[in-house]
């Protein structure tokens, strides 16, 4: 196939071809494999083929800019509110917008249904990107400003963001309640992104340093949306690979991915450059069953396993701190005393970095003993840890219900008085605190957790089969990790509704 040749229009629903299953890391998964016995792993629905207008929108360079501007339109007033607005958290836009509205939207809608769509809206790296590109929309010059150095090979993983996220998580007590602290954090991230861009290439900051990038990436493996080349066969024969090297009018993948062979959503920031570079119009947005990437046997690593442990452990500790009846724990997290805070920090770090992985490792070790077929422990441990993604995401969704339902009504108040200065822009400044859906919430939380448990158990079994290559040892090896999952689910159920 030569450059510039148009691909025949495709229609929505399709099955991954055998060749594409191999490229996407699903080669060892049987063709008829289904999630929960219902949803075929290889099922895809190509939205760009079904709705050709969507492709035109995605190819337009204005689309990304408008999305970024939407992000800015929320971010700038929030930052102003954080720096010069009222110090009362629930009357300040930055706290309500970031920790109630954004967080809930991220966990309840964006990550599960739209992958890393937030990265397309995120304003934090925009200044640095505009500066490097010397423009807002048009590709002005093939040469980017800055030293464009490569990120050190040893750090090309999730370990840096694991520790950066954990570092911020230690301050969650004050971060989520003090407007100035949140503003300093967001402003600080923007400055670090700018500095990183002076030295390193493209979206190095987003890929390797962004505090939320790690869990967005990992949990986006569960998302029901993906950007992939479709059909892959057209890319195989296409040697110019504009998506990797760029064109006169569009940039090479800023996220340092190879869009043609990309197997997982982890590092796809949905910037849409691949739509603009592809002379074959071969990029697509596809629907898929949740968790399809978790089975992709490509680029797995312990860095991502630990991300799963950190997120799972942090969800439990946050639930206990913010929603539990233990006042002492709240005081520790809120830095009421140095000793208490150090205890909280130690417990959090020890739990997420040591206790959760050690417990999971013990159950995997038991499973390996039961399986009776020799497989490398590290490989089994790493592979099965991806099975914690569904339960981890569902725990965060259940957590987000408990943020949104009791506190969502603050949004109505702050849209009229975003800075706490006594404004009443839309006549809702005196809207009282009105928790909603509290009766429904426990049922939603339990249902969500049960779904997470069942889905995780299913994924763990599939991962065990992928690792062992046969059913019986896989089924035996999956039993202890599923017992671990049951324990985790019970713990969260107790924390949320017990």
């Amino acid at each position, binding site marked *: 196939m030569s450059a510039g040749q148009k691909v025949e229009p495709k229609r929505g629903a399709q099955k991954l071809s055998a060749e594409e299953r191999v490229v996407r890391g699903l080669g060892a998964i049987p063709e008829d494999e289904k999630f929960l016995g219902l949803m075929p792993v290889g099922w895809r629905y190509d939205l760009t083929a079904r709705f050709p207008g969507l492709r035109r929108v995605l190819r337009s*360079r*204005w689309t990304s*800019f408008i999305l970024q*501007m939407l992000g*800015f*339109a929320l971010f*700038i*007033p929030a930052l*102003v509110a954080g720096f010069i607005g009222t110090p009362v958290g629930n009357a300040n836009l930055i706290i309500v917008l970031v920790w109630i509205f954004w967080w809930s939207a991220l966990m309840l809608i964006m990550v599960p249904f739209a992958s890393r769509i937030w990265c397309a809206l995120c304003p934090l790296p925009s200044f640095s990107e*505009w500066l490097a590109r010397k*423009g*807002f*929309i*048009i590709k*002005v010059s093939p040469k980017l400003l800055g030293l464009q150095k490569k990120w050190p090979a040893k750090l090309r993983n999730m370990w840096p963001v694991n520790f950066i996220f954990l570092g911020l998580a230690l301050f969650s007590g004050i971060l989520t309640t003090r407007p100035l602290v949140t503003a300093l954090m967001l402003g600080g991230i923007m400055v670090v992104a700018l500095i990183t861009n002076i030295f390193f290439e493209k979206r190095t900051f987003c890929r390797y340093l962004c505090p939320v990038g790690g869990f967005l990436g990992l949990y986006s493996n569960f998302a029901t949306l993906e950007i992939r080349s479709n059909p892959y066969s057209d890319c195989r024969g296409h040697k110019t690979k504009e998506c990797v090297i760029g064109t006169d009018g569009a940039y090479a993948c800023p996220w340092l991915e190879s869009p043609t062979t990309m197997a997982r959503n982890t590092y796809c920031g949905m910037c849409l450059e691949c739509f603009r570079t592809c002379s074959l119009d071969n990029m697509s947005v596809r629907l898929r069953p949740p968790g399809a990437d978790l089975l992709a046997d490509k680029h797995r690593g312990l860095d991502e396993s630990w991300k799963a442990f950190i997120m799972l452990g942090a969800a439990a500790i946050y639930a206990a701190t913010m929603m539990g009846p233990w006042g002492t724990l709240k005081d520790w997290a809120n830095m009421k005393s140095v000793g208490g805070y150090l205890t909280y920090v130690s417990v959090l770090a020890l739990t997420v970095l040591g206790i959760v992985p050690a417990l999971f490792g013990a159950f995997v070790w038991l499973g390996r003993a039961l399986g009776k077929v020799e497989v490398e422990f590290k490989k089994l441990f790493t592979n099965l840890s991806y099975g914690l993604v569904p339960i981890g995401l569902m725990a965060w969704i259940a957590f987000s219900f408990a943020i949104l339902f009791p506190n969502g009504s603050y949004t109505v108040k702050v849209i009229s008085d*975003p*800075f706490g*200065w*006594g*404004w009443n822009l839309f006549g809702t400044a005196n809207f009282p605190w009105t928790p909603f859906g509290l009766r429904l919430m426990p049922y939603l939380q339990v249902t969500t957790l049960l779904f997470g448990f069942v889905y995780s158990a299913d994924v763990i079994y599939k991962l065990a089969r992928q690792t062992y290559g046969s059913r019986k040892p896989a089924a035996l090896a999956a039993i202890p990790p599923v017992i671990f999952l049951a324990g985790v689910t019970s713990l969260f159920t107790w924390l949320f509704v017990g």
Partner: protein
Amino acid sequence: MRWQEVTAGLIAAAVVVGIPVAAIAYERAYAEKVIPVELQQWQITPEIHMKAGTHVHLLLTARDVTHGFQIGNLVNIPEIVPGHPQEITVSAVDPGTYEINCSNTCGIDHATMRGKIVVEP
């Protein structure tokens, strides 16, 4: 192509710079109209100045005991309790000087507790 960059730059500037500037400008305009008025034995401060044809919001705060706020026979707020400020809106039609007095017997010199609103043409 160039028009696209210029348009995008203008949009970016409007959002990134315009929003904070507009917010602060609005706050200034708004804040000028909210005048904190303190009532305490036996004074009403500050002297209020406004233009004819405009209106102001007065935030009435009693500092010591319960007071009242009366402007001739135009406005009367009979009870302003310490710790519970009340906001009222006063519209000025005709220029002149209007006397304010406390309308809630607040102590021995209650009758001397006076203030002024000056409506300038």
